């Protein structure tokens, strides 16, 4: 019943770099850093889309297409998408670790989470970088102004 105390060994004084490289630590640091970055990204996103200019009335196909035609907003949205997805998935991973007691159930949920995360990030990235702001045969009044040159 009673466990034995661990054996006495000579203490190791220097910083253990193999210890500092463990995944648990990096996942904790990532969660904090990505959280701070996401606050900036999300509030910028909300400000640009919902507040500045005409506010929520400006959102239509032309507005979104115009934004996604610019490389800056493509990379901005890509960063927001990947950070938010990994940040959220990392949090869900910890919740599953806490509450899914049976190993098989835990593994199933963890893999479902990983697959869902990868699928959403890949789909979102495809949309961001292959999006056509000026589809052929569309009503010109619905398209962003950049399409007039084509």
């Amino acid at each position: 019943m009673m466990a034995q105390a661990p054996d006495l060994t000579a203490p190791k004084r220097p910083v253990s770099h193999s210890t500092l490289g463990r995944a648990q630590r990096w996942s904790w640091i990532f969660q904090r850093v990505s959280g701070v970055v996401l606050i900036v990204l999300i509030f910028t996103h909300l400000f640009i889309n919902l507040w500045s200019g005409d506010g929520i009335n400006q959102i239509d196909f032309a507005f979104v297409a115009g934004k996604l035609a610019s490389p800056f907003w493509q990379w901005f949205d890509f960063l927001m998408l990947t950070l938010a997805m990994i940040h959220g998935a990392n949090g869900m991973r910890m919740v599953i670790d806490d509450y899914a007691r049976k190993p098989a159930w835990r593994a199933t949920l963890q893999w479902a989470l990983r697959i869902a995360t990868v699928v959403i990030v890949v789909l979102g990235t495809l949309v961001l970088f292959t999006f056509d702001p000026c589809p052929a045969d569309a009503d010109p009044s619905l398209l962003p102004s950049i399409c007039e040159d084509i």
Partner: protein
Amino acid sequence: MTATAEAPAKAGAVPSMTVTLKILRFDPDGLDGREPGSEYWEEFTVEAHATDRVLDALHKIKWDIDGTLAFRRSCAHGVCGSDAMRINARNRLACKTLLKDLNPARPITVEPIKGLPVEKDLIVDMEPFFASYREIMPFLMTSGPTPERERLQSPEDRAKFDDTTKCILCAACTTSCPVFWTDGQYFGPQAIVGAHRFIFDSRDEGEWDRLEILNDKAGVWKCRTAFNCTEACPRGIEVTKAISEVKRALTTGTV
């Protein structure tokens, strides 16, 4: 407070009151026709003084009403850490909680601390808790020959871990931790407090042995800074702060 004043109180007399304790009991043997392992609430009403603690009320019940009530206590004065229990849904020491501070007009609920297997009534199996404590090697680790005299330390160095030396291993913090309740693998706040006491001690050289253990899957990264441990600690240790200091040592790589 429901004071029962049959006679005019004498000068200097301690006012007395009637209190009801609602105790969550667990019967492993199945006495009085109960199923073995049954769990049930039982209410006891006792006369108590305004200066009495929850432990005094429990004593009255055990000594005068129902001798089968089981609970732990040793010193009865807040030093040994034996009588941590969940009183009115908060982890406290029964010997440091005055009845008059708990609204005696309503029944006072007393439950065993959560997250550890209950053995009987308010007694839980503390072995998983002590196993976590042993895991972090709570003893002085040094190299070189033993000195002829004391190992000296400056007051500033001592102040770094002063708070965590106050721990009495009552398990109030660990059994208030929501991660400990659900996870079943987490070391728990107390083991990290125990490790903190040696990690930040300038005389000890085993800090990286302990930090390596606390960097593991069941270590400090499980902490979600819920602050339940800091609120529960009957010794007033800032437990969450100690855990965060261990995290900082691990993120910066310096102690």
